[in-house]
């Protein structure tokens, strides 16, 4: 290993060291505040390390790692999201009974898994990352051991994720059989030499898609999502919706663009079908939900459906659009779950839509934050979500994917209905339920997120420029 190799791995080393340090600290002296502060610090350090890496890239550590601008970008948003989730978790986790400090250990291991996905250039690292992420998530989801549906969600995720991993692994095996390599770039070369994909390869890709589709909660592999979102602690749901999905998306985009999957007729049809199904089923099933976490789960299914349109554009501009969309989706989702997290306490989660009745008149600030988050999810102007959707539609139309674009338009009108329902509830006359007060730190975090939603919605040019720098034309 050279010096540059080490330098490039610093963020991962920090992420791997932090949980060990926390474990040692806990065994000597258990203090929630110290662990929390240390976690934030480590995440900041990991993020700062990215700036030191920047001059050394693109750098690849054969055969597993590739660290380029693209991975740097994803590492950045993964770390920032993990940081915000940690920040929002503070009160929520603190109020739980029993051991709480371990939450941050697991948060680190899962972030490590997510980060590995962003730099994966090889099936081995791909698999390693996805397993590190998933296994940590089982624990995070079932972290409230005293709650029934938390355990239920954990077990559900455990079983279904294992099955999907099996599919993923089998798919990787088939592809290895077909092309004799597990490196993305070598597979790509093999494909370009061999011409059209053989049925063996198609089967392999299809099976991998099952595994990936599960992680991204795409229809028809979505069934776990609402239960897990509902059962998991609210900040963990936010984590699954953002960091976990974002990381899987990172590796998916890299892999898919490497092998030029959009050129293959069958893959094109399969992905189109998955996208359209996800949009419609996600949005239609969300309509009848009374539980806001389930509603957001279905909404995330639909949003991932919009996002994978980008895979079929097959251009770098498409990747830029997907990055913008991911960022806007990240901050919006974190903002929505942040509100739920901050309004919940150990005994009762603020998860029913009826809990939010009249919120605007009692807590205007939180209600505005939530309203803007929902409007952003719905893609209404002046929010980041609008520009994100515009960008995806724009690139989709440019690539001539009219069917997908129309599906997106129609399903987002359906989606509007349930977002409006929640908003209307918040603005209706005040209800009975009392919700806990929000700490100053919580308010500050929410305000910062909301302002960034608005800034991206009104003046997105600078972020687009940054993304262009990272991905290139």
């Amino acid at each position, binding site marked *: 290993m050279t010096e540059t190799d080490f330098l490039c791995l610093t963020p991962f080393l920090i992420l791997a060291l932090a949980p060990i340090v926390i474990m040692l600290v806990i065994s000597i002296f258990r203090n929630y505040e110290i662990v929390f502060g240390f976690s934030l610090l480590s995440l900041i350090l990991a993020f700062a390390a990215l700036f030191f890496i920047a001059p050394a890239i693109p750098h690849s550590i054969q055969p597993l790692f590739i660290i380029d601008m693209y991975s740097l970008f994803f590492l950045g948003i993964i770390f920032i999201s993990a940081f915000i989730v940690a920040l929002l978790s503070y009160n929520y986790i603190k109020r739980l009974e029993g051991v709480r400090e371990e939450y941050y250990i697991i948060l680190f291991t899962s972030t490590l898994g997510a980060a590995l996905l962003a730099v994966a250039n090889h099936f081995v690292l791909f698999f390693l990352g996805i397993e590190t992420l998933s296994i940590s998530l089982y624990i995070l989801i079932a972290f409230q051991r005293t709650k029934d549906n938390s355990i239920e969600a954990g077990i559900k995720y455990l079983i279904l994720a294992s099955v999907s991993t099996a599919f993923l692994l089998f798919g990787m095996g088939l592809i290895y059989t077909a092309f004799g390599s597990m490196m993305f770039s070598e597979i790509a070369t093999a494909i370009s030499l061999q011409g059209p994909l053989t049925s063996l390869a198609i089967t392999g890709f299809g099976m991998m898609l099952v595994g990936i589709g599960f992680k991204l909660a795409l229809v028809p592999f979505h069934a776990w999502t609402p239960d897990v979102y509902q059962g998991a602690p609210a900040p963990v749901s936010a984590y699954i919706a953002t960091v976990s999905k974002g990381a899987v998306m990172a590796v998916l985009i890299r892999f898919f663009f490497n092998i030029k999957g959009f050129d293959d007729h069958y893959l094109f049809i399969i992905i189109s079908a998955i996208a359209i199904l996800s949009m419609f089923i996600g949005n239609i099933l969300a309509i009848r939900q009374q539980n806001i976490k389930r509603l957001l789960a279905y909404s995330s299914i639909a949003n991932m459906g919009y996002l994978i349109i980008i895979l079929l554009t097959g251009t770098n501009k498409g990747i830029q659009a997907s990055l913008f969309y991911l960022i806007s989706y990240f901050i919006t989702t974190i903002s929505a779950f942040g509100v739920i997290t901050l309004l919940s306490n150990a005994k009762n989660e603020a998860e029913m839509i009826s809990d939010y009745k009249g919120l605007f008149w009692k807590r205007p600030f939180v209600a505005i934050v939530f309203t803007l988050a929902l409007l952003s999810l719905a893609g209404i102007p002046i929010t980041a979500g*609008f520009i994100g959707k515009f960008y995806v539609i724009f690139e989709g139309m440019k690539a001539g994917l009219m069917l997908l674009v129309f599906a997106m338009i129609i399903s987002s*009108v359906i989606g509007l*209905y349930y977002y409006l329902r929640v908003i209307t509830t918040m603005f209706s006359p005040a209800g009975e339920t009392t919700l806990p007060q929000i700490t100053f730190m919580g308010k500050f975090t929410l305000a910062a997120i909301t302002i960034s939603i608005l800034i991206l919605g009104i003046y997105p*040019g600078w972020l687009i420029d940054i993304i262009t720098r990272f991905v290139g034309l």
Partner: protein
Amino acid sequence: MILFYLIAILLGGAFLSWMAGRLSAALPRIISLVALTADLILIVAFVLQLDTLNNKWLVDLNADWIPKFGISFHLALDGLSLLMLILTFFLGIISIIISWKEIKVRVGFFHFNLLLILAGIIGVFLSLDLFLFYFFWELMLVPMYFLIGIWGHEKRIAASFKFFLYTQASGLLMFIAILALYFVHGRSTGVYTFDYMQLLGTQMGYTTELLIMLGFLAAFLVKLPVVPLHNWLPDAHSEAPTAGSLILAALLLKTGAYGLLRFVVPLFPSASVSFAPIGMLLGVVGILYGAKLAFAQTDLKRLVAYTSVSHMGFVILGVFSFNEIAYQGVVMQMIAHAISTGALFILAGQLYERTHTRDLNKMGGLWETAPVMGAVGLIFAMASLGLPGLGNFIAELLILLGAFKANVFMSCLASVGLIAATIYSLRIVQKIFLGKKITDWKFNDLTIREKIVSASLVIIIVWLGIFPRTVLNTAKPALQKTLEVQKENNNDNNKTESILDLRFKN
């Protein structure tokens, strides 16, 4: 920069009102009133210092917004948008005055929404960048949704949903069409831009043009509304608070008409001509169907809402006649309808405040109790039926004249609408003010505040009827250019680009 200030003042006023709502109930009203008056004075003063109104663009503001996509912050003012702006500010002021007593809860937030809608509306009237236009188009939506959903009547939630979904769905179709136009233009010229001036005269195949135009039409025809797409309107109008109904009927519907004149006709010259027979037919159907339904209503606000459908039928009839007389009529109709229908909604609001019902069957014989109100009601019922001497008469006459040139049959059918209008308008007066007293209502006649509002509206509608030239001359250059652009592009699709460049230099 003046155009930017107009919007900024409204946005600033909106936030201030919201904040001020915590301090007192009167403060937001005063702030909004000041913001709108400032805007009105600003625009009038600006126009008065101009030497001529004959330039195509009186003022033009162009700044980069998202240059990567060719999106600019491009606002410009011409005679048509000037009229619409003045109308917007004036009716904005009226809507604040009339809600002075009606809106008692959450006053700050109410005025925030009100000013935000108005900001969106003037943005729509000023944008010359299609992306910006869509941005403002959507900006009107959310606050209007709140206005109906929070301060509306009993069935407000359903009405606000319907309003939002209809407009959003059709708006998205327009959005796709805007993008399609962008790409078509970009591919043929290499310049990717959302700028209206550059998109004028885009070369495209007939089918493409037709499809893209249908996307635009979807949004405008829903907003206008045209009959098969009008379903949201009666609910939204009748459930909204008075100020909401006023803004919906008087201003929001006009954005649809404005969109037809500004975008559909010049951007799609040949497709719009081929759509004309259908467009005119839709207009006539709207006129007659709206009138028939208006006659059948027992809810006063629903009745007025259906008269809107009928009156807007004239607008689309005029737009697809493609001649100057009809276009002048359309502009006149936009203004006269805003005033007269607005006044009727205000009347309905005043009656509701006093009687707490909108049911015509419970009213009757109110003239004795409230003679001033009766007189005002009579005047605007007369305006609505198109009595000579009032603004609506000029508008509908011009439209029918213009339509007669274009299509005799449609024009004749449409004039039947005038008779129908007479029936439903007289029915309003008959049911409310004349006839037998069904319930013995006891209430005060109009207060000073309400008298001022009504008097100013009466003065304007009479003035429009007697001196229509001011309005017509202001709008004339803009309308002529619209028609010229349309004709040239239609006749000769190849040579237009250079001509257009010269024309829009100033």
